[in-house]
């Protein structure tokens, strides 16, 4: 067995090859690239979504249009006050703008996908229902009937 014993100084641990490092990093990179959704809008209203247990995941992001409702962020309060406001895309809007917004959003989609368009209503939990009810009425007038009350998932009290 003398064949296997080394003579002379004991060699140090050979350096770990870093040749596969780029591959590992690329793998991570691709994962994050796929999982990433870029923020599309600048939030101008403060949002604290209500909690719910019976939530359903919104699938097909491309079919979803958002309506944000909440009180304006501090930097906009001088101009817009502190009462709840509607935000469509990047700007504060009036109730009467919702119809046009829905029409514009519908135009953006393929004809086939239009009936499946969903509105996600992201409203702060302290918003008064009067405003929400008005928005719902506008949505009904614009015949955008698929509505999703956006809420955070709460796990307690759930049996599933």
């Amino acid at each position, binding site marked *: 067995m003398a064949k296997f014993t080394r003579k002379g100084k004991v060699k140090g641990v050979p350096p770990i090859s*870093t040749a596969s490092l780029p591959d590992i*990093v690329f793998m991570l990179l691709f994962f*994050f690239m796929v999982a990433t959704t870029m923020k599309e809008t600048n939030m101008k209203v403060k949002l604290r979504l209500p909690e719910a247990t019976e939530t359903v*995941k*919104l699938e097909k992001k491309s079919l979803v249009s958002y309506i944000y409702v909440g009180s304006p962020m501090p930097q906009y309060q001088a101009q817009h006050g502190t009462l709840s406001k509607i935000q469509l895309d990047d700007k504060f809007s009036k109730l009467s703008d919702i119809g046009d917004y829905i029409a514009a959003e519908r135009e953006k989609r393929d004809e086939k996908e239009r009936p499946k368009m969903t509105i996600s209503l992201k409203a702060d939990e302290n918003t008064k229902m009067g405003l929400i*009810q008005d928005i719902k009425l506008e949505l009904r007038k614009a015949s955008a*009937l698929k509505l*999703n009350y956006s*809420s955070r998932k709460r796990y307690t009290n759930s049996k599933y």
Partner: protein
Amino acid sequence: MARKNRPLPEINQSSMADIAFMLLIFFLVTTTMDVDSGIYRKLPAWIHDEQEPPKIKRRNTFIVLINKNNDLAINGEFAQVSELKDRVKEFILNPYGSDDLSEKDDKFVEGIGDVKRSKGVVSLQNDRGTDYGAYIQVQNELVAAFNEMRNDYSVAQFGKTYKALSIELQDAVRQVIPTSISEAEPVEI
């Protein structure tokens, strides 16, 4: 030229990892992983001229009312959100055939056959001053009640949970227990 035969020098790849790292960090920072979720609701279609709402017998309506102080009333009596789910289930299922809970009619459902279906409608009313959070709490309890009833029905009928059923059977179960929640226009209370 003299250069012609010289082989192309190999590109140094040692900076590849750095470039990839930079991209990786960029995506790490910009990533938001939150998945949008919420309670689905189909709004009733808008009807231009004022129509008489369909007449529903008193015993077939279950009136849930939230006032501007976020207090809850069921059929005119003060109640807690925690008891809402069981009250709705009792109202729709009417297990003992009580006279003041919902009636049932026969319906043929493909995939299941003839079933007794409740005629009950849950009417959700609110004030313009009700908080959205409170409203969603109540909505959530109502949806939970219907989901639980469907699940119980699936287990009793097919021995599987509702989620484990095929799409067709889920549809059938949804027809047996439809989400009959009516959201009326708000009133000033």
